[in-house]
């Protein structure tokens, strides 16, 4: 089956969740460097968390049968730190992840996810722990994420989530794919090129 990747307005995402526990999970762990030897992102989905999965011999959340088809990932603090490799969110996206909820995210990782249309939502440590426990207790539970309401809920429980204003507007309007917006400013860019001292023999 060909995967549909995020496009346009990201308003609602529904599906089962899975949990990756631990603070400071770096992008080397999400996708080890040897898998960066590629000129296309297409094979990365199978390789996500490769070393952790090998170590757990089939018991890693990304291998468990009960999590097949999950599209929401719940993590802890400073998720995605380290290398700027977009291969990390690409690998998560190609495995099937469409939304990540955590205590906090590393900056470059957050931006890379945004550029793919994957919201990285935050909540307090307490709330995350509660959500993670609920997901673990009932992995088949369908969760409904609503960007406008900044919440994720099932029939019984609802959690408030946070997202900084800029990213919210980009996802809500569907304008998270920046290229066309950036190209709109051609004249202004040319102006900067004409005026930046270091591009003009330092005459200023």
């Amino acid at each position, binding site marked *: 089956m060909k995967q549909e990747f995020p496009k346009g307005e990201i308003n609602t995402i529904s599906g089962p969740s899975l949990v990756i526990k631990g603070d400071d999970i770096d992008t080397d762990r999400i996708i080890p460097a040897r898998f960066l030897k590629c000129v296309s992102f297409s094979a990365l989905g199978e390789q996500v968390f490769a070393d952790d999965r090998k170590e757990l011999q089939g018991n890693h959340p990304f291998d468990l049968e009960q999590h097949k088809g999950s599209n929401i990932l719940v993590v802890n603090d400073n998720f995605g730190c380290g290398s700027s490799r977009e291969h990390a969110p690409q690998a998560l996206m190609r495995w099937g992840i469409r939304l990540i909820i955590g205590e906090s995210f590393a900056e470059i990782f957050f931006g890379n996810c945004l550029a793919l249309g994957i919201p990285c939502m935050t909540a307090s440590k307490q709330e995350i722990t509660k959500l993670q426990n609920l997901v673990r207790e009932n992995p088949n539970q369908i969760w409904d994420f609503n960007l406008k309401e900044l919440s994720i809920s099932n029939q019984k429980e609802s959690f408030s989530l946070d997202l900084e*204003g800029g990213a919210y507007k980009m996802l809500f309007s569907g304008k998270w794919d920046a290229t066309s917006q950036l190209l709109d400013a051609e004249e202004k860019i040319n102006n900067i090129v004409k005026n930046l001292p270091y591009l003009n023999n330092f005459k*200023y």
Partner: protein
Amino acid sequence: MSSGTLYDKVWNFHQVKELPGGSTQLFVGLHLIHEVTSPQAFSALNEKNLEVKFPNLTVATVDHIVPTLNQQRPFSDPLAEEMLSTLEKNCKTHGIKFHGIGSNSQGVVHVMAPELGLTQPGMTVACGDSHTSTHGAFGAIAFGIGTSQVRDVLASQSLAMKKLKVRRIWVDGSLQKGVYAKDLILHIIRLLGVKGGVGFAYEFAGPAIEKLSMEGRMTICNMAIEGGARCGYINPDETTFEYLKGKEYSPKGQEWDNAINWWKSLVSNSKAKYDDEIQLDGSSIEPTVTWGITPGQGISIKEKIPNPEELPKNEQQIAKDACKYMNLKADQPIEGTSIDVCFIGSCTNGRLSDLQEASKIVKGRKVSAGIKAFVVPGSQKVAKEAKQKGIDKIFLTAGFEWREPGCSMCLAMNPDKLEGRQISASSSNRNFKGRQGSANGRTLLMSPAMVAAAAINGKVTDVRKLLQE
């Protein structure tokens, strides 16, 4: 909100416009690319039928995947060869200058660009690599980006970015003998944590910073990202200008004088406002070594590996993970920890002065039996200058291997890897689980001189003891 800092001034020069989402469209003055994070960006450009907007503002080299033993083409690893030839093809198609193998100017992107004079004060520098913060050492705003942003910069010479807050880290005093820039930055990351810098640009300032060479300053800014700060910088001064003078891409003649005037005008005002300020004493810092699995898990050479139970609550779990993964016992001294592999190189510490300082420790001594020790110069220029000074001979005589330039075992995308549970003393920047090419390999980060000392003694050693002998 900050005002009057170098960050504010450089930001203003490069602001294209405010974007509807609240971020800023920022012009990129120097775009550096390499073989790992650019191929998908060029493919995306082709799919969208877009051109490279300013090919003369993008510069390419190859570093991550190059083998360091034999750089004959084609590389023996077909995937590595494919990545290099894809980059060559993309550069040729789009008219981008490529510093390849055999060009005499190839090297780790954050080593070769500064030494060519490409990186200058007041620029915005972007590259698909988190250690782009290195270039901030010149008083540039430099930051790592993902592949989608590489595509955006190729297409528009700009990207969407939120302005960061600015934290000034003021370092008093001066570093003691045997204590290097690497020790200082490991110490800072230990103090502020691996996510302490998220949302901030770090301005490193104060007497201890001013006394550092450009190469030391690059080591500091290089690892800003390990403290969570996407961007770190140091105000340009005479040390900066002295370094840049006469470099291939540096301004010359009248332009040079004009450039210095402009560069000086960018320095943070004495009454600049910062979002946060921190002060520490550089004189009291000791050689620092990481014992765990994040660059924030560092201790001085005189300290013992911490007992997780005695750490602040939010550090306990990762400290427990680290003890288990590293197979190191709490309350044991870090000094004397046996090691298997010694790696001197990387964008953090693969420059001439790094090799020079390490060679002083190695000179007249031998690598301890059973230790694999190797030096990977950061660039072809570094390798050439080191050879002219006879530094390669010092290492070779002592039993080190002397390799060809590249990123090598910093991230092990080439054949240089740890094996099994091996533990390395490494002058690189990350001690993450599996970082150096073995899923359960272990890394102790330290200065190049400390790596040299570890190689001689076969165990973690206070380099000051070898400096005295």
